[in-house]
């Protein structure tokens, strides 16, 4: 039976090569790659290996966790939430009107130092429910304009804080516009503690991202006013509060460095904070906190790493123990073919 109609036939081409290669051997050349014989290893998870691996991880992780936890515990941290407390009782039912008002918003806070804090003591402000990572917010800035005066007029991406009366705002955009403007003054026993506000920003930001010859222009001239105003005679590279602020936070709860205290704070010290409560977080139910903290080699206070290490380490140790018991109580010969699926199903009867 012929089925020539369906068969596909080689084209006229290629025929010359075909007959030329007729006499040569078509035996494939041997290579480990093509024969799929490249050296390889596949660890077999024998009980000993598994138990040993868990044991070692447990033994390594638990001390690590302890060390991390100690480091974290060694950090002293004082957190003081003041957003509600700094509103006079009479204005508490309409906080937004108060904060937008013109009256003096000074506020006194007292902080007790429970443990000695070695210098430098870092001062942070912590904002909560503030979506500094909001897409509309994040993209409302112009890095070129911050870097040099050349791009001053390039404010396209800064909307809605781009121009005022046709003149470009420097620095433009929502991020700069909403610059945090609460201020803190610290005193101990009526003696002022100096706050060092130099070097609180990233060096690379100061040196290359914010220009030495860029000066604020038309900043906070519109209404409403978003936050802090900037000195028109200080270049952006020295406006460290702005630089810190412009490095937007990744999460809606964030801390930003306000300054450093270069003296030790002794245990039992009472620190008075004279606070200028200007920043409006009330309209979006944001919280404001003042944080004083020392650091360790691991950074600020964060128990997570230590706890994670401890948890995983203990689970490993437990599993090592569990598998050892299982192995001793009910040992099974390695490579027993009767456990193979087809042997098992045959045994079960079909």
């Amino acid at each position, binding site marked *: 039976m012929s089925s*020539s109609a369906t068969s*596909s036939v*080689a084209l006229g081409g290629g025929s010359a090569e075909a007959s030329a290669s007729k006499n040569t051997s078509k035996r494939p050349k041997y*290579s480990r790659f093509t024969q799929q014989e490249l050296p*390889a290893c596949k660890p077999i998870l024998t009980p000993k290996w598994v138990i040993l691996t868990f044991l070692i991880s447990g033994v390594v992780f638990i001390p690590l966790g302890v060390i991390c936890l100690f480091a974290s515990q060694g950090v002293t941290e004082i957190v003081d939430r003041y957003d509600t407390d700094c509103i006079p009782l009479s204005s508490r039912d309409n906080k937004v009107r108060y904060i937008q008002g013109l009256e003096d918003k000074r506020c006194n806070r007292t902080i007790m130092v429970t443990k000695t804090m070695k210098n430098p003591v870092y001062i942070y402000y912590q904002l909560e429910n503030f979506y500094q990572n909001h897409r509309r917010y994040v993209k409302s800035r112009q890095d070129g304009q911050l870097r040099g005066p050349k791009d001053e007029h390039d404010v396209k991406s800064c909307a809605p804080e781009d121009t005022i009366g046709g003149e470009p705002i420097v620095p433009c955009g929502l991020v700069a516009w909403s610059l945090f403007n609460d201020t803190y003054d610290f005193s101990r026993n009526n003696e002022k503690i100096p706050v060092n506000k130099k070097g609180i920003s990233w060096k690379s930001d100061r040196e290359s991202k914010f220009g030495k010859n860029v000066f604020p222009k038309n900043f906070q001239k519109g209404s409403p006013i978003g936050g802090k105003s900037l000195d028109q005679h200080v270049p952006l590279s020295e406006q460290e509060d702005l630089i810190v602020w412009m490095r937007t936070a*990744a999460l809606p709860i964030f801390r930003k460095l306000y300054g450093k205290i270069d003296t030790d704070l002794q245990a039992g010290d009472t620190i008075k904070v004279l606070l200028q409560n200007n920043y409006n977080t009330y309209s979006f139910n944001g919280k404001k906190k003042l944080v004083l903290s020392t650091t360790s080699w691991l950074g600020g206070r964060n128990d997570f790493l230590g706890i994670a290490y401890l948890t995983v380490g203990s689970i490993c140790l437990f599993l090592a123990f569990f598998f050892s018991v299982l192995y001793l109580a009910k040992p099974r010969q390695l490579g027993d073919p009767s456990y*193979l699926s087809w042997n098992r199903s045959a045994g079960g009867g079909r």
Partner: protein
Amino acid sequence: MVRSGSFHVDSSSASHRRTPSRTVTLGHIQPQAPSYRTVYCNDRESNQPVRFKGNSISTTKYNVFTFLPKGLFEQFRRIANIYFLGISCLSMTPISPVSPITNVAPLSMVLLVSLIKEAFEDWKRFQNDMSINNSTVEILQDQQWISIPWRKLQVGDIVKIKKDGFFPADILFLSSTNADGICYVETANLDGETNLKIRKALERTWDYLVPEKAYEFKGEIQCEQPNNSLYTFTGNLVAQKQTLPLSPDQLLLRGCSLRNTEYIVGAVVFTGHETKVMMNAMNAPSKRSTLEKKLDKLIITIFCVLVTMCLIGAIGCSIVTDREDKYLGLHKSDWEYRNGLMIGFFTFFTLVTLFSSIIPISLYVSIEMIKFIQSTQFINRDLNMYHAETNTPASARTSNLNEELGQVEYIFSDKTGTLTRNLMEFFKCSIGGISYGCGVTEIERGIAQRHGLKVQEEQRSTGAIREKGFNFDDPRLMRGAWRNEPNPDLCKELFRCLAICHTVLPEGDESPEKIVYQAASPDEAALVTAAKNFGFFFYRRTPTMVHVRESHVEKMGKIQDVAYEILNVLEFNSTRKRQSVVCRFPDGRLVLYCKGADNVIFERLGNGTDDIRKVTREHLEQFGSSGLRTLCLAYKDLNPETYDSWNEKFIQAKSALRDREKKLDEVAELIEKDLTLIGSTAIEDKLQEGVPTCIETLSRAGIKIWVLTGDKMETAINIAYACNLINNEMKQFVISSETDAIREAEERGDQVEIARVIKEEVKKELKKSLEEAQHSLNTVAGPKLSLVIDGKCLMYALDPSLRVMLLSLSLNCTSVVCCRVSPLQKAQVTSLVRKGAQKITLSIGDGANDVSMIQAAHVGIGISGMEGMQAVMASDFAIAQFRFLTDLLLVHGRWSYLRICKVVMYFFYKNLTFTLTQFWFTFRTGFSGQRFYDDWFQSLFNVVFTALPVIVLGLFEKDVSASLSKRYPELRASMRSRPKVPKK
């Protein structure tokens, strides 16, 4: 030729791009009868008005101008690319949180890689075309031969082709340097058959050999329009006011080459894309793997996940943003922030852009690359699948189906040439009711072994001859001993019949040791070889004569050369199932020799010799049950008057322009009757090496093997026994049309009645078997089941009303043997299981009759390295031996499946983690759609940073070694039962 060097093999001409159809068509395509083309030979001016196509061919898909638009169009037919195009467009708009580069970069990288690949492949095709178009041929111009490139050849030109040269177009054969106007052609490029074919020019045109003479030739060829039927050609040559009929014998096809002939002269009939071989160039039907289809579903699911995520984000955003977030400057309201609905709407698209990476853009490209390397480097170069004897390595003709090999559950195998060697050896014969030949077949030995009988060592009589094609051992017939047998005359007729009635070509030296027989089928060669060994040595064929060197005919030891004039050849075809030759002896005796299938011959026997008929039938059954292939031989003496009147009809039929084949068959029927039975021959068809072991391994792997064969039921069952498919512990269901009830109905002869009876019987049998099968399956440790069904019953069982029953019965059986099935039925059975049972099927076969089956299955495998390329051309993989299936399925298929599954999972998990992080972050940004990753990181994540690990996994991952997976084939079964791709 075999273009496996492409990612998908959708190689071939775009200009002939037909929609790849899955339907299986069989048989010839009818030539377009009503329209003719008229070609004026040697007269370019006269041919001018018709505007025949030129001879240059182009198989390229693109040209310089169409490359970009067409290439891009092809790329964007892929849904994933469209998706990413959409996302890229979105990312250009201000609502996008990411810069356009994030989506444009990977898309353009993917497109670039695909386009470069396309361009490279097309360039290779172009160069190939150019080298073909520029090869030279000599044509007649102004009485001399002038060399011109092929592409300038025109219809009607007179060309000269030298020895071993290729024909540049379809050429009408006019004259040859050989005597009698014949030439030999090799058609290996067309059908893969390496034996030479004879072409014969019309006697009137023999003289046009030298340029001076050929210049005078002014003929007019009227012939059919170009078509793709390789084996038909009808037309007339009008020369010197005479009309001469043309047949395929005078047509030399493009792609063939001239052999054993110094040179020939011919007239060009079809050129370029109108040649038969180019009309046949067809796209292999592109098959997609099941896994790929699942992948599409998975991608749709993932897309739904994406939409859900975006909806959640959009709703969240419209709720959260609807507040006095002073720092967002909403008081200076942009229009999109006017109300919550608006915000949600825009945020939705923002998020779609942001989360677009959840759909892995490079997934398809990576998988294609992996599969490509797997097939070209691993499968094609596996030394375990290299067959040294035939010098054939395995070849993956498509790289789409690698992992499909790992999921195959049903194998449909052809018998001849696949399970068996197709190495035919003359083994036994029966002459005038006496059986000769005392060998024991492999199958008999196998049966005996299973019965626990001891197999006696083969005792060969001294001086028994053994050569390729001849394994006969019986001193009663050798060296003229047949003269002393009861029927020496019948013996003589048998030997003559073997020596004369065939279409074999002798090649090489005319001595019994050195001669090589070129035959269309190994059976024929074996029969002629047998005649040679019996002392009837066929040594020369001219178009009209067959020369036989006969020994011991008149008296012992006398050798004489006898030339028989061949008057007519009634050729073999599958409907006739027989072949006849009318020849005239030197003494004037007119004889018709006929050989063919037993039932066909028995139908046409004359009266008398009933006892011989009965005994021969018994012998035939014996031979059949030993797994031998049988043929019946008969002859008939003709008287000159009847012959002459018949011959006139024959010549008329032969020159008919329409339905020539049908008319020839009818005429043949007139003379092939009242035959005298001589006897029968039995040829052993040896099993391929390692078939029983391979089958056992595969069935342990949970693969069910069906044998579909055109052979007799007894032969099929025996082969099944020999290769371990059936054994005596199995319960056998046999549904045969050879039952009394059916035979009775057949004798009554009413076609409608026969059909009804058979259908009833089949239904009854099926019902009974199914009940028994279900009963035995319910009992614990019941015997395994097997089903044997023949083609006639199958025809009715495939009827829609019985199909379900057949399917459920056969699915319960471990092995199924279908015998006497036609190629179409093979395909039907395959698609029955494929569609009805939703199982992955594989078909393996070697011949043209397996093409339909190969194309119908999920995976088609062709046996290469033998004669006949048609199966290979239609297949997805080609291997040289059946036993290589073990490696292909258990090693390559299994690993490919494992690897591709892991790659897919790797991709989805990697992209899910990547995107879900982003999704989580969205909650922490007030659903604003702020991005978490850097633009460049996101754009290069898939196409660069994580591209290599996946590919490495896809190439090197192994769970167990190759030797282990072959030793424990059950591993494959256990892998298949566990879904590897998570269903979401």
